């Protein structure tokens, strides 16, 4: 069952990558801003959760909720105090600011926590596995990560297409000037979008922090996985992003099964192949 095993593993890993990617594509979709610090923000959130569980003695669930609130506020403030000043026609300043932020976060975490590998402790729950078929069982934690990804995408989809806030998001994404004429406060919408992105990144951080070790230096790699999932899936489509994450997860686990050293590389190669044959991604949004 080796082959089927790696397929299941790849799909489950894809859930985590999709969660990485959703936060990135949220900001890009609404503000046309690529946040180069996205990966480091996920790692930062993982360290916050770790601190909340170790220093405050909170349970993992409570710590995650608390961190989500904190990250939302940080995101809101980040947009209002920093990013807002550099957004404009020239895409260079916002890219450079987020790149600088990435370096600052990485080295700040290194100073604060050291270079050791950490992991979030989910208790007994980590060891539980669920039988899917005779001879094939999966860990409960990775399964829940995938389910979480599906739920998050579904909730965001609802938010975007069924609520007034979602309509404001879409209107601002389409045309900020006209949206503002219609009484939408663009500054608030942007700040909410960044806050939401960071809150979603916290969910990504917890699913990822239970699954594997993390240290301050791994942020950029998370950014690249998130980006690859977005491009593979196709711009402007949340379900596409989920599919993109799964394709990336599959490419990595299958590549890793052939030769462990090729795991990450095969993910990158899959991305380049998709870019070559379907530059708009596998499931691009029809509009835009």
């Amino acid at each position, binding site marked *: 069952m080796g082959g089927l095993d790696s397929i299941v593993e790849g799909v489950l890993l894809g859930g985590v990558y999709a969660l990485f990617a959703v936060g990135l594509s949220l900001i890009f979709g609404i503000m046309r801003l*690529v946040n*180069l610090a996205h990966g480091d923000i996920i790692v930062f959130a993982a360290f916050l959760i770790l601190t909340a569980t170790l220093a405050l003695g909170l349970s993992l669930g409570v710590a995650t909720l608390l961190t989500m609130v904190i990250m939302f506020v940080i995101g809101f403030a980040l947009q209002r105090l920093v990013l807002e000043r550099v957004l404009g026609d020239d895409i*260079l300043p916002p890219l*450079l600011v987020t790149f600088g932020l990435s370096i600052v976060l*990485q080295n700040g975490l290194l*100073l604060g926590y050291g270079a050791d590998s950490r992991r979030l402790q989910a208790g007994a729950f980590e060891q539980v596995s669920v039988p899917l078929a005779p001879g094939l069982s999966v860990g409960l934690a990775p399964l829940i990560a995938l389910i979480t990804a599906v739920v998050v995408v579904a909730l965001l989809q609802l938010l975007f297409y069924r609520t007034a806030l979602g309509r404001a998001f879409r209107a601002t994404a389409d045309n900020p000037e006209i949206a503002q004429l219609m009484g939408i406060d663009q500054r608030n919408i942007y700040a909410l979008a960044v806050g939401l992105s960071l809150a979603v990144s916290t969910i990504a951080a917890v699913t990822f922090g239970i699954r594997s070790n993390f240290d301050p230096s791994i942020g950029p790699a998370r950014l690249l996985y998130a980006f690859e999932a977005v491009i593979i899936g196709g711009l402007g489509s949340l379900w596409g992003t989920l599919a993109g994450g799964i394709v990336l997860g599959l490419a990595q686990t299958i590549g890793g099964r052939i030769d462990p050293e090729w795991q990450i590389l095969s993910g990158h190669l899959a991305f*380049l192949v998709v870019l070559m044959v379907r530059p708009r991604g596998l499931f691009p949004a029809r509009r835009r």
Partner: protein
Amino acid sequence: MTTILPERSDQRAAMGHKQPRWRVQSATRLSRIAGIAAAVAVPLLFAMPAWVSRNLLQDLIFVFTMLALAQLWNVLAGWGGLISVGQQAFVGLGAYALFAAVTLSGLDPLLAVLLAGVAAAAVAALLGPLMFRLEGPYFAIGSWVVAEALRLLCAQFKPLGGGTGMSLSGAALANMTGTKWAAALFGLRPAAARDVVVYWMALVLVLGITTAIYVFVRSRLGLGLAASRDNNAAARSVGVRTDRIRYGLWVIVAFATGLVGGLVYLQKARISPDAAFSVVDWTAYVLFVVVIGGVRTIEGPILGVLVLWALQFNLAGYGSLYLLILGLLAIAVMLFLRRGLWGSAAARWEIQLFPVRQRLVRRKSEEP
């Protein structure tokens, strides 16, 4: 920056117009003085190994190579709008090409530096069409992905040490062209003489790259590039071949970046995939140099690299604190001094040592 391409006065004269009242001009009095000062400084820089210590010489090699990388990124991202955060790909490729040529086929290290540039340009030429499918900010991360993929590929190359890397043997470096000559000239040991040769090459590279960029951005081609960055559709509609200019720029910048990468690792004489393809060493520092000094100016990166050198001199012992401060400084500059230290000063006091703007100037003789 103006992106209009006014007709040249001689063209208009040929078409039978009267001598026009306006002409396009870049030079200023200050820029002529700066040109003379540079002409005096260059021979001095070449003679420098005669009296400075080996430590300072190595520092200057760092300053020159960093400045060369900064100028290259400045023209690619600043003027061209091709914002790459994956230039470490071409530093690493250059470095690996040099090591492959020297250790596997015993090529003269000086020639191998040239080969390093060719290798980087060849890969850039192949990747270009793929990368240009990604627009604007996505191009940035896409270039980073490519650099990571190349790092992992080089780590698979066992003859060059795989993931752990390797060192250049003294024997391979001993017969490098120019070393014996420099050793005899200054009475140095071979290792120190090699630094002198590398220093000269770094100086030649940084001068050549800076001059080429300066001439390019002042040319009509450079204006076309700026136009394609500011408004691609409009630039195409007036006949600027934007795709061709951008592709050419991408490949030539990769070539020069590969040269610098080869030279840097010739001096280090030790390579590993993580170091040669380091995003911090070959992109973060470079970006900070350009941002702090001033994007889209020739002088900005020169000032920026001096700031970096001073910071490194004082803070390098602190490791991550040093990078933290550098990152914060770059963010602060972007927020409060968008044009960088030099760019802001230049705008305020109207000073340009190496002017890159084209201005319309009224002819004196025509004034009433």
